[in-house]
């Protein structure tokens, strides 16, 4: 394969890049655009590629930056909703004393071994739909946290929000994801 031809990159790694982008953005159209932008950016910056990593790793790193750009833009489009979120005392999970309203059930052990691959795929499907149900701002913040692999200060400055705002958004996203996973995965699994 000619490693210097971007059309070959598309043939070889297009599906992989698309799968990564789709998982991280949750939107097929956006993922397709990100793959295109990644390949164009890679072609334009190919002179800077020193060959220290494989083409696939290099393309994945460019794609990650494109995803982060998209998440930042998505966050800023939705930013007014931050201020419309319920105040901290109105969260659904707690009563007015800040005590859990409902009993929290124990989670079963989740799929770990290769033989559990079907269960793992089912778990991922649930996780994917739970992520999709998150408010866009919370989703963008959570994705950035996992993809940035950097200090939260970097995320705060990229999004132009305070650390307290970030923690509240992450906290609420985690609680929502926990409830969603509890409802749609663990409770169903325990009924089997």
């Amino acid at each position: 394969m000619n490693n210097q031809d971007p059309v070959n990159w598309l043939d070889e790694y297009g599906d992989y890049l698309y799968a990564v982008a789709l998982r991280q953005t949750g939107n097929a159209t956006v993922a397709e655009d990100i793959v295109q932008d990644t390949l164009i950016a890679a072609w334009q910056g190919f002179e800077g590629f020193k060959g220290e990593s494989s083409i696939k790793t290099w393309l994945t790193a460019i794609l990650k930056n494109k995803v982060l750009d998209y998440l930042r833009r998505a966050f800023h489009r939705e930013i007014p909703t931050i201020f419309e979120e319920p105040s901290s005392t109105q969260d659904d999970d707690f009563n007015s004393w800040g005590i859990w309203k409902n009993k929290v059930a124990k989670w079963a052990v989740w799929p770990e071994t290769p033989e559990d691959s079907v269960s793992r795929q089912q778990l991922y499907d649930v996780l994917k739909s739970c992520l999709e149900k998150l408010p866009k701002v919370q989703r963008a913040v959570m994705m950035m946290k996992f993809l940035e692999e950097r200090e939260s200060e970097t995320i705060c400055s990229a999004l132009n929000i305070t650390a307290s705002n970030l923690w509240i958004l992450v906290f609420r996203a985690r609680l929502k994801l926990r409830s969603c996973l509890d409802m749609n995965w663990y409770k169903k699994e325990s009924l089997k």
Partner: protein
Amino acid sequence: MIREWFVTSWFSCRKFAERMSRSVDRPLSTRDRLGYLFHFYWCFTCRRVSKQIRQLDRELGRYLTEEDLDKVTLPQETIKKISEKLSEEKR
């Protein structure tokens, strides 16, 4: 007033969950850590939630970054569109 502060800071599950979420990402201040530990030892439900949120983070990290991704393919139309764009760029 003091009672309210004590209840919200030390006995509140909500406050605990907030501190726990923060502690996953960065160390807590001494004051927050004390409140966190106090609550952790007496509240069974919060211990369970704490474990679940850590599990959730691990699963989410795995889901978002693992190599063995879903078998999805770029639509043919998109491949054609991107190929054309790249050919234009090459010129």
